[in-house]
């Protein structure tokens, strides 16, 4: 672990987080922990079929059940036309969102909501949902990318025509979009290449796997104004999306953020919220809805399964000279896989002159995918970084050395267009190369792999307020849910600026009626963007306080400076004024001390990670055990290193799960066979070693402390790092995820 550069009092230290006590005592209130007196409970009727037309829905019997207060179906939602959420091309289309919340004329995956019921008890609601009679005309289902892309495949959406083709398509298709990135002269590139590797890779849909299921309590009044308590990655977006789907006004809805029990991208969209709000409106009482784990798996976003073909060529000296990538990502039932970032990131680590990347967004009869940590990048890196490893072997070159010879640096034009600004990729490679882990001895059936990954990171719209209380303590208010220690990080930045103890600052996540708009906690943005706003607000306060001290001392404002939490006269004209004194006397100097700053910052600062993995393969069972793991990542500047390390470790372990065990398994009829933690096996403590971390700090010039996002990049390299390690241990290239014991055994016996 790198010790953080000193010179700061709070930035780079590891204070106990402010919300910690509530979380170790069970007092923290998560989504399902809210209740109001007399509230109803909601349940959802879901489709048993992956693809069917809804012919009729008969609610008569259900409505007559005791305790049932309201029932809604797709017909109760306004029929929206295509409209995309701001800044999310290929992301959220409200028309599709509405149809995913409640099916209209067709169900498109097993688990697709068809109706929702509110009743006095959960049992009554579930029983009523069961007796709703739905008549379906079953349609042939499309369950694989290969099938979905065939010319004569059954089509999910009659009105879906492929975008981005060379000529206008004349009939609907399951391919919603084609994306292409091209540069240079491929033919010349291949001629120059001394070695070429071409391989096909597949990955399965995997779930974000947050431990807290989706939950909401909604209370809608007779006047149509409503309050939602829910856990999400962004309550402002929940309000926007929910009111849009319902045809309500955002100003009429207040969303109170619960603590969030993990999101990883999966809680950036809505599922239950409009159902609960509308049921509450219909029933005139509050309605609580909580998903079961099975519902979470069957009907909330996994990330895409994928098929990728990568071809790369290098000169003898290790220079990569040409590459092609063909990639298809599952979008689920509606368009919008992360194929965009997929094509942009797949080769983004390297400076390759001649490139052709082609990506397809494909719908099929599975749940609509949702964002998952660096959406679209991890599977792409699995493919590309496996090929790089194979090239290194063919060139008889150390795989880190090969990466170093091709690594992008400041000023290099990224494959997706712009030039990189200041980045720390080379630094992560060098740290990995020089780490003792990289040279440690290995035993029989053991192997070591490395891989790297790139992620853009994101800024986003932000409001933050810093206020000083009369006792000189401060409140830092933002509107971004704290998933992993951002309250502490924001308080640390304010403490550094104001010169007061970090625990004299209370960081608060405010509801939609208490602070200006904030984008979601996502895109690794909070320490970066909200950090900028908090620092700026603190600096404005300091300026204000210095001006007030100048007023009190009757000196020009320039003669006052802020040192260690006090206003000091540069000419020693008077004894310093502490924050507390200024705050308690603020009535006489212009009123309360508070500053609000809004920003939409650029320069989020690209993130890179390089990871080293040692595995041991059991040749009898095919079981792959991770023996040692090191994550090297550029954080720009780690504000609270514990939580930076935590992001790196958590991301790496999610990637290890993706590599070794996790996958959606569907039966022939398109029904998910493993919608529970028993059969969808995420890593547990006994599966893993300690996860070593090395925080590289190449400061981001666009943040006052140099912060880059750290939340996402860590999940990108693991699958390739593990696969490369398995190769080193066994001599077998694993091209299909997960590398479950069965698959590994198959590979071992496939000589």
């Amino acid at each position, binding site marked *: 672990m790198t010790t953080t550069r000193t010179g700061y009092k709070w930035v780079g230290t590891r204070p106990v987080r402010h919300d910690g006590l509530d979380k170790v005592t069970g007092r923290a209130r998560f989504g399902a922990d809210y209740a109001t007196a007399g509230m109803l409970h909601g349940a959802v009727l879901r489709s048993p079929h992956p693809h069917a037309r809804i012919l009729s829905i008969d609610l008569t019997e259900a409505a007559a059940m005791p305790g049932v207060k309201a029932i809604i179906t797709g017909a109760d939602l306004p029929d929206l036309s295509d409209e995309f959420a701001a800044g999310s091309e290929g992301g959220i289309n409200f028309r599709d969102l509405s149809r995913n919340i409640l099916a209209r004329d067709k169900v498109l995956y097993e688990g697709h909501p068809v109706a929702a019921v509110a009743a006095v008890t959960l049992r009554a609601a579930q029983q009523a949902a069961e007796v709703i009679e739905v008549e379906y005309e079953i349609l042939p289902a499309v369950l694989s990318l290969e099938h979905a892309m065939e010319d004569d495949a059954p089509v999910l959406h009659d009105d879906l025509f492929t975008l981005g083709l060379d000529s206008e398509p004349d009939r609907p298709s399951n391919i919603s979009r084609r994306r292409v990135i091209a540069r240079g002269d491929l033919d010349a590139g291949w001629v120059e290449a001394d070695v070429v590797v071409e391989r096909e890779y597949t990955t399965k849909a995997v779930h*974000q796997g*947050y431990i807290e*299921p989706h939950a909401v309590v909604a209370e809608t009044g007779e006047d149509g104004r409503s309050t939602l308590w829910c856990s999400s990655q962004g309550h402002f977006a929940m309000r926007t999306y929910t009111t849009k789907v319902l045809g309500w006004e955002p100003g009429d809805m207040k969303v109170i953020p619960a603590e969030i029990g*993990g999101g990883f991208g999966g809680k950036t969209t809505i599922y239950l919220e409009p159902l609960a709000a509308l049921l509450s409106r219909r029933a005139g009482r509050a309605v609580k809805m909580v998903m079961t784990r099975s519902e979470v798996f069957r009907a909330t976003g996994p990330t895409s399964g994928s098929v990728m073909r990568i071809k790369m060529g290098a000169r003898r000296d290790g220079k990569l000279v040409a590459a092609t990538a063909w990639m298809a990502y599952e979008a689920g039932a509606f368009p919008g896989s992360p194929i965009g970032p997929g094509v942009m990131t797949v080769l983004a680590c390297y400076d390759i002159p001649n490139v052709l990347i082609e990506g397809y967004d494909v719908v099929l009869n599975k749940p609509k995918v949702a964002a998952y940590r660096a959406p679209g990048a991890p599977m792409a890196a699995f493919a590309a970084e496996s090929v790089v490893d194979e090239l290194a072997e063919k060139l008889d070159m150390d795989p880190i050395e090969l990466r170093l010879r091709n690594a992008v640096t400041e000023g290099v034009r990224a494959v997706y267009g712009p030039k990189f600004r200041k980045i720390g990729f080379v630094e992560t490679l060098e740290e990995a190369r020089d780490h003792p882990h990289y040279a440690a001895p290995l035993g029989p059936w053991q192997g070591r792999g490395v891989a790297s990954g790139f992620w853009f990171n994101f800024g986003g719209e932000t409001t933050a307020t810093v206020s000083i209380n009369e006792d000189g303590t401060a409140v830092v208010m933002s509107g971004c849910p704290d*998933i992993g220690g951002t309250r502490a990080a924001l308080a640390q930045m304010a403490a550094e600026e104001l010169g007061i103890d970090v625990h004299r600052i209370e960081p608060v996540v405010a509801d939609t009626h208490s602070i200006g708009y904030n984008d979601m906690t996502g895109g690794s943005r909070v320490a970066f963007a909200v950090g900028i706003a908090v620092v700026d607000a603190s600096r404005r306060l300091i300026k204000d306080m210095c001006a007030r001290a100048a007023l009190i001392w009757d000196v020009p404002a320039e003669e006052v400076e802020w040192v260690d939490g006090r206003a000091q006269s540069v000419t020693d004209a008077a004894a310093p004024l502490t924050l507390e004194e200024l705050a308690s006397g603020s009535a006489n100097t212009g009123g309360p001390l508070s500053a609000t700053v809004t920003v939409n910052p650029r320069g989020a600062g690209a993130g890179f990670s390089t990871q080293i993995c040692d595995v041991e393969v059991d040749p009898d069972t095919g079981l792959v055990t991770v023996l040692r793991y090191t994550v090297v990542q550029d954080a720009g500047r780690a504000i609270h290193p514990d939580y930076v390390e935590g992001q790196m*470790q958590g*991301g790496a372990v999610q990637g290890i799960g993706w590599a070794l065990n996790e996958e959606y398994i569907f039966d022939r009829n398109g029904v998910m066979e493993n919608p529970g933690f028993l059969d969808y096996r995420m890593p*547990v*403590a006994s599966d893993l070693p*300690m996860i070593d971390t090395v925080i590289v700090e190449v400061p981001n010039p666009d943040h006052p402390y140099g912060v880059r996002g750290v939340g996402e990049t860590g999940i990108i390299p693991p699958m390739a790092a593990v696969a490369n390690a398995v190769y080193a241990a066994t001599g077998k290239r694993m091209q299909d995820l997960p590398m479950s014991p069965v698959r590994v055994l198959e590979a071992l016996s496939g000589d």
Partner: protein
Amino acid sequence: MLNGDEIDFLCNDYQTLLSALRDELGMIGTKEGCGTGDCGACSVILDGQLVCSCLVFAPEVDGRRVETIEGLAEVDHLHPLQDSFLEGAAFQCGVCTPGFLMAAKALLDRNPSPTETEVRYGVAGNLCRCTGYDKIVRSILDAAARMNEPENRKEAP
């Protein structure tokens, strides 16, 4: 007996202990992650044994001793596990934390000086998706070391 207090409550015969705790008694510290015994978020200690409260029917606990997260701290100080989880940053979102703390307590009650491997297996029934377990395992080992320091040992129950 719930966290040392004699209590009575009414519930339906199909209700789980988890549901009775949360819905009837308002003790929301114990979490539900799956309802099927696979995540450990609902871990409580029943007569000294770690159990998933989602797999125990509420009427079964009649006359028995239940310990939940709400009873872990003393009036004026936290349990050493809570201290070490705080100082060791052993959680990010924190939804798994009550379950991990109870599982770790059950482990240390039984085995006051576990090895890293014993800790890893001791909490193998608990899922955490945020941390990768590194800091959780370190914090449990740290708590064990604190509790074994001579001046603390006599306090241990």
